[in-house]
């Protein structure tokens, strides 16, 4: 079976090469067919791999190393990409998938541009496929086959994490297609409105799954790692945040290219950078140059190959850019205070924010090379990254109404008065009633400002209520994304500044208090699951009239010889009461269980906001009704 997959992968590599050559020769049709066939073969290949995991075929080395007969079916399947080789196979599949999708759905009317895009995408696939087949093959047999597999890392045995890598890869690899489009556009020195319309769709097709992937990863870290937080500024998280930020900058810059044929060189550069940052993220995570709690498949040698790929693609694209950038047109004229100017500010801040994340992530490495060991963590990003983005978000509601070319500034007093009033209200509420810090009050005002700003803009454009529902999907997309951003800000501010955490040690039958809740430990019992056993505590939490039962667990996976925490979360509507079970300890002569207890106010808003951003992106992908504009 697996040999069939191996063979299919080789054939797919050959077809990807054909896609590359014919594409670069300008043969749109042949390259398109090759792209679809290469994808079909790789799909077969990938399915044989998944089948080997489903059937627990331990004669396949990868299955023996990463699977186990007792694992639930979902994790047998997701185990196929929960390891280095399998995830590379997924990477190849998605690369070819975007090539095939491009062959079907690209509609620019420019044969050469499309052919070259497919060609470059084919060559990118050849690179990934060669890496897969010659440096990290998942198709190797093991002889003799063991009776039992070694099991998947227990931390990865989680529903959210089953879909986290595919989503993330759809995003990362989606940018490979945007990269290919940019390179093809630069080859013919035409980054114009037609190009931008196409590039915008594909950037969205990458941005939406990347957003969902990051949200899933963050949610997983929240409830599985048992730390009570949702973002840790961990190097691996940063590695996914950087392409996202570049992608967000690209989504805004490409609008200027589409509508005004402006920013064309800059948009092309961002299109290239989004993919380069994606590969760099993979490199940082896989090579083990950074220490992280998220990194799972670390190997310095593979890191070196990824670095080589990064330098190769990056070098190619940037040289091409240097040769062609001056030929790209400048678009229609505009002044600083205009829609173009506002989108330029968006881009400057997002790029500087990306570079800040990059600096903070790599600085410990550079310091180590200079003989100093230092750490860069949350306080650094809170004091650099956060204020920068906050400044950008402050202007968003105002500038999204601005016209192209030159903004009408006659009503600026109204905006300023509204903004200042909002801040003052929250300052008064924050200091007087909620007793929160001034920074938190400002953050809340900012979130509300964004939500109202987005809704106001929708109503301003629609004029009447009836027309709100007839607005183009893109306007809805923008509104939803910006409302999501506002809700995210509110959730993030409230959660980070209002989180309560403590530790309580309870004897069985004992009672304690935390975060205003009275906690009674009813029992702690040893239980058994399909491939783990656990200590499971049952607690009754009472606050006022509400009562909740929480059952946090400490699991032990014998196959991997590894413990995990299974947190218990009670949603109150305004936040999460969150408990993780710790060690048993002797306190005052009697055994007690230690619990970490958190109350995370409004944390759901963080995830809801991010998902709303993804949905907004999805709306923007919706094809428009053709109007008279050609």
């Amino acid at each position, binding site marked *: 079976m697996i040999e069939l997959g191996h063979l299919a992968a080789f054939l797919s590599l050959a077809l990807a090469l054909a896609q590359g050559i014919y594409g670069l020769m300008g043969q749109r049709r042949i390259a398109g067919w090759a792209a679809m066939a290469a994808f079909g073969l790789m799909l077969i290949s990938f399915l044989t791999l998944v089948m080997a995991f489903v059937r627990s075929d331990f004669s396949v080395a990868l299955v023996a190393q990463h699977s186990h007969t007792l694992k639930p079916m979902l994790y047998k399947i997701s185990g196929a990409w929960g390891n280095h080789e399998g995830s590379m196979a997924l990477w190849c599949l998605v690369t070819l998938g975007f090539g095939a999708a491009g062959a079907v759905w690209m509609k620019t009317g420019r044969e050469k541009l499309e052919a070259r895009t497919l060609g470059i995408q084919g060559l990118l696939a050849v690179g990934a496929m060669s890496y897969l087949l010659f440096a990290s093959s998942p198709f190797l047999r093991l002889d003799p086959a063991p009776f039992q597999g070694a099991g998947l890392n227990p931390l990865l045995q989680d529903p959210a994490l089953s879909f986290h890598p595919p989503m993330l890869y759809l995003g990362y690899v989606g940018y490979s297609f945007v990269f290919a489009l940019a390179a093809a556009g630069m080859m013919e020195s035409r980054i114009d409105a037609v190009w931008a319309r196409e590039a915008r769709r594909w950037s969205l097709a990458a941005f939406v799954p990347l957003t969902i992937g990051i949200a899933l990863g963050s949610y997983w870290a929240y409830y599985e790692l048992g730390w009570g937080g949702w973002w840790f500024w961990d190097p691996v998280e940063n590695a996914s945040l950087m392409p996202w930020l570049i992608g967000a900058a690209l989504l805004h810059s490409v609008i200027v290219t589409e509508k005004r044929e402006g920013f064309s060189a800059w948009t092309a550069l961002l299109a290239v950078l989004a993919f380069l940052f994606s590969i760099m993220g993979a490199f940082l995570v896989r090579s083990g140059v950074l220490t992280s709690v998220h990194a799972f498949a670390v190997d310095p040698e593979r890191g070196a190959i990824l670095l080589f790929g990064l330098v190769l693609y990056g070098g190619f694209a940037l040289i091409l850019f240097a040769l062609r950038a001056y030929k790209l047109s400048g678009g229609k004229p505009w002044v*600083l205070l205009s*829609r173009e100017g506002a989108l330029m500010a968006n881009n400057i801040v997002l790029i500087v924010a990306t570079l800040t994340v990059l600096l903070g992530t790599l600085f410990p490495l550079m310091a180590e090379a200079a003989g*100093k*060991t230092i750490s860069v963590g949350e306080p650094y990003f809170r004091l650099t990254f956060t204020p920068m983005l906050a400044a950008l978000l402050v202007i968003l509601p105002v500038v999204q109404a601005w016209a192209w070319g030159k903004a009408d500034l006659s009503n600026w007093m109204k905006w300023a008065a509204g903004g200042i009033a909002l801040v003052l209200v929250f300052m008064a509420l924050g200091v007087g009633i909620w007793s929160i810090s001034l920074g938190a009050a400002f953050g809340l005002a900012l979130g509300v400002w964004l939500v109202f700003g987005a809704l106001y803009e929708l109503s301003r454009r629609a004029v009447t209520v009836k027309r709100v529902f007839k607005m183009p999907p893109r306007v809805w997309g923008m509104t939803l994304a910006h409302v999501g951003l506002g809700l995210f800000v509110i959730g993030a501010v409230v959660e980070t500044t209002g989180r309560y955490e*403590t530790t309580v040690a309870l004897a069985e039958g004992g009672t304690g208090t935390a975060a205003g809740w009275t906690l009674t430990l009813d029992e702690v019992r040893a239980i058994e699951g399909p491939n783990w056993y656990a200590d499971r505590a049952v607690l009754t939490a009472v606050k006022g009239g509400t009562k909740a039962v929480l059952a946090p667990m400490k699991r032990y996976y014998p196959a991997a010889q590894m413990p995990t925490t299974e947190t218990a979360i009670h949603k109150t509507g305004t936040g999460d009461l969150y408990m993780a079970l710790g060690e048993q300890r002797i306190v005052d002569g009697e055994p007690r269980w230690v619990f970490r207890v958190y109350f995370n106010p409004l944390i759901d808003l963080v995830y809801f906001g991010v998902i709303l951003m993804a949905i907004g992106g999805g709306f923007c992908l919706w094809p428009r009704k053709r109007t008279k504009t050609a």
Partner: protein
Amino acid sequence: MRFLVILLASVFMMGAACAEDVALDNPNEEARAQALMRELRCVACENEPISQSSAPIAEDMRARVRVMIEGGASDTEVRNWFEDRYGEFVLFRPKSDSLSGWVLWGTPFALLVFGGLIGLAVARSRKASVEPVRPEDI
């Protein structure tokens, strides 16, 4: 003398190790202690602050933070105490008083200013007759 130091140190460590990993009575002090715990790095873990780590040493470090806060130490004194023992590595808030600290903390803002200047230059070079156009969808 040396014996005395070791004796004192061990008594002191025992005190720290035995201190329960539970909240201080004064909520303001506890909030300060927790804020500090979030920015001190556990020395035994991959990349976690002591507030999150379940390692025994992190527990001791948490207890130490609480003992010091309760004893009236300022945030800076707590940070310095840990830095003296474990090196700058232990601080998730890197220091800004050396050249590298300046580079680390200054670069983002320098880049922002630089980017802003470029933006202004780009916008200035484009003053021609401008026709405002209302955005029809985005």
